[in-house]
């Protein structure tokens, strides 16, 4: 049942191997070393080296341009007694999960619907994907226009126009509605990625399967649920991973839309790290927050990765 491309690849591999059979094979660690060298070099330079720097300065107190002083684990101790930092944890959870669930479920669902009619929906896919190319800051400004207080906000204007004027409010002025508004705005531009990746994954399902399902009288939603969804998890998985981590470190959109407010109600850990490091320039403190976040993600991620690697082999 192999399709054309892999078949061709196999014949070429076979032909090549047939040509020089007695050739000695490179050992796996050697091959791994050869293929990984560029990755290790670039990754080491731009991630590992700065990471060690970060760990190092997380033990120092640095205030702005002032002289740094060694403080041991003080930054970490302070972090866990800082009500602002502790407050960001809950907000981060809601924001990150909210954006990921909303964007991936919409994107994935749309991708599966589009797979029924790839040609007719091409323009629509492009329209939705286009939002992915808009920078966070500009998206923030546009969403401010939508959520503005009074009738000059698009959302309020629309509510008034359809007779729901009582619902109109200053959306960014209360903690709960500001967080919801932020999740909506961030999800808006995040839908493009799950749409793109899930669509690619759904496309790999052979048309014959869909045709057979239709012949059996399956309704489109049943096809989505029983056939497309289980067969397109690869795309959604990557999208969940990338959107989750992007939401975790979101800064610009929060800065523009709510500035973490009102009264810190929309401040996430990512925003906190950025504010401490860049605005306050408490580099040591910001570094400690980064390391804590890194360890937290590590703890969450290790079981998932362990399970995945076990499943693969």
């Amino acid at each position, binding site marked *: 049942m192999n399709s054309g491309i892999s078949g061709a690849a*196999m014949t070429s591999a076979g032909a090549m191997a047939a040509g020089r059979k007695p050739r000695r094979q490179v050992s796996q660690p050697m091959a791994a070393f050869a293929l990984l060298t560029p990755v290790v070099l670039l990754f080491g330079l731009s991630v590992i080296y700065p990471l060690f720097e970060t760990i190092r300065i997380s033990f120092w107190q640095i205030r702005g341009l002032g002289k740094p002083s060694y403080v041991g684990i003080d930054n970490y101790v302070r972090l866990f007694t800082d009500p602002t930092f502790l407050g960001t944890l809950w907000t981060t959870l809601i924001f990150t999960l909210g954006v990921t669930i909303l964007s991936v479920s919409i994107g994935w669902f749309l991708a599966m619907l589009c797979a029924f009619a790839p040609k007719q929906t091409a323009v629509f896919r492009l329209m939705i994907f286009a939002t992915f190319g808009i920078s966070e800051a500009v998206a923030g400004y546009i969403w401010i226009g939508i959520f503005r207080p009074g009738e000059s906000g698009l959302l309020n204007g629309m509510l008034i126009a359809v007779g729901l004027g009582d619902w109109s409010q200053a959306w960014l002025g209360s903690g709960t509605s500001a967080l919801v508004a932020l999740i909506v705005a961030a999800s808006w531009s995040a839908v493009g990625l799950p749409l793109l990746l899930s669509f*690619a994954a759904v496309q790999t399902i052979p048309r014959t399967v869909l045709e057979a399902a239709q012949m059996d009288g399956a309704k489109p939603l049943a096809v989505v649920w029983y056939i497309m969804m289980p067969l397109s998890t690869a795309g959604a998985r990557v999208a969940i991973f990338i959107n989750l981590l992007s939401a975790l470190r979101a800064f610009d959109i929060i800065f523009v839309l709510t500035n973490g407010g009102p009264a810190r109600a929309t401040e996430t850990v990512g925003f906190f790290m950025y504010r401490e490091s860049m605005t306050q320039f408490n580099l040591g403190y910001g570094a400690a927050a980064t390391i804590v976040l890194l360890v937290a993600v590590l703890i969450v991620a290790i079981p998932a990765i362990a399970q995945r690697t076990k499943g693969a082999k």
Partner: protein
Amino acid sequence: MVYRAPRWIIIVVGIIACLWVVPIIGIIATSFQTPESIARGWWHFSQNQLTLNAWKKVWSDYPLANSLWVSTKVTLLATVLTMLTAPAAAYVFHYLRFPLRRTSLIIIINAFVLPQQVVIIPLFRLWREMGMLDNIWAVIIPYVGLSYAWSVFLVKSFLEDFPNDLIEAARIDGCGPISTFTRVVLPNLISPIFACGILQFLWCWNSLLLPMLFLRNDVTLTVLLARISGTYDPNIDQQAVAAIVTAIVPLLVFLIFQRQFAVGNRVSSGGKE
């Protein structure tokens, strides 16, 4: 093409897509309206005045051509490098056995959590000492290095559905690990590699922080246009122009390559049956 899609599906997708572009229409409308019209709300099309002022001003005040070239150069190089090296890493992590495999994989993937400003200060010092500031590689290297956090994962995720019998067959035919990769795996990874490419292109193209600090004379489009808004004059109309100018290139790239991206990934279906 026997399968006929029910009409309601197209209608639903169409409605959602129209809803989705409302803010984009906002950006386009904003770029053509006078500031007092924008203050009133860009959607009051009947009362608002149209103007080309913002476009003219951006056109005359900013050397767009040079920055477009710098952006293109930097983004293309970073994208191609990622597309070449990430699949190799994904393959190595997925199929080969070597010491510290799992640990290094976890480290690479977790690097995605690192906020960019953590990278910035150590790298700024390093580039300075090496005399690399104002050199496009000062930006390209971290772009590629940071991309591994997600690109390796992306490709590896697609490899999980890769048919094992193909790998087996190649091994029996006497292929070593490297030729298995180049002859068997790589040709079947076109779709995820292009996904990596498109994502990397978009992110590099829109990136602001690294080029802002590491480039001086020849700056990228985002850096050039970042100075449109002053401390107290947001100049939203000109920012909208900047957003459109910046978004056009990635959109074209996506349009051109989406075909490569959607076709070609037939391998997992082959393996499943």
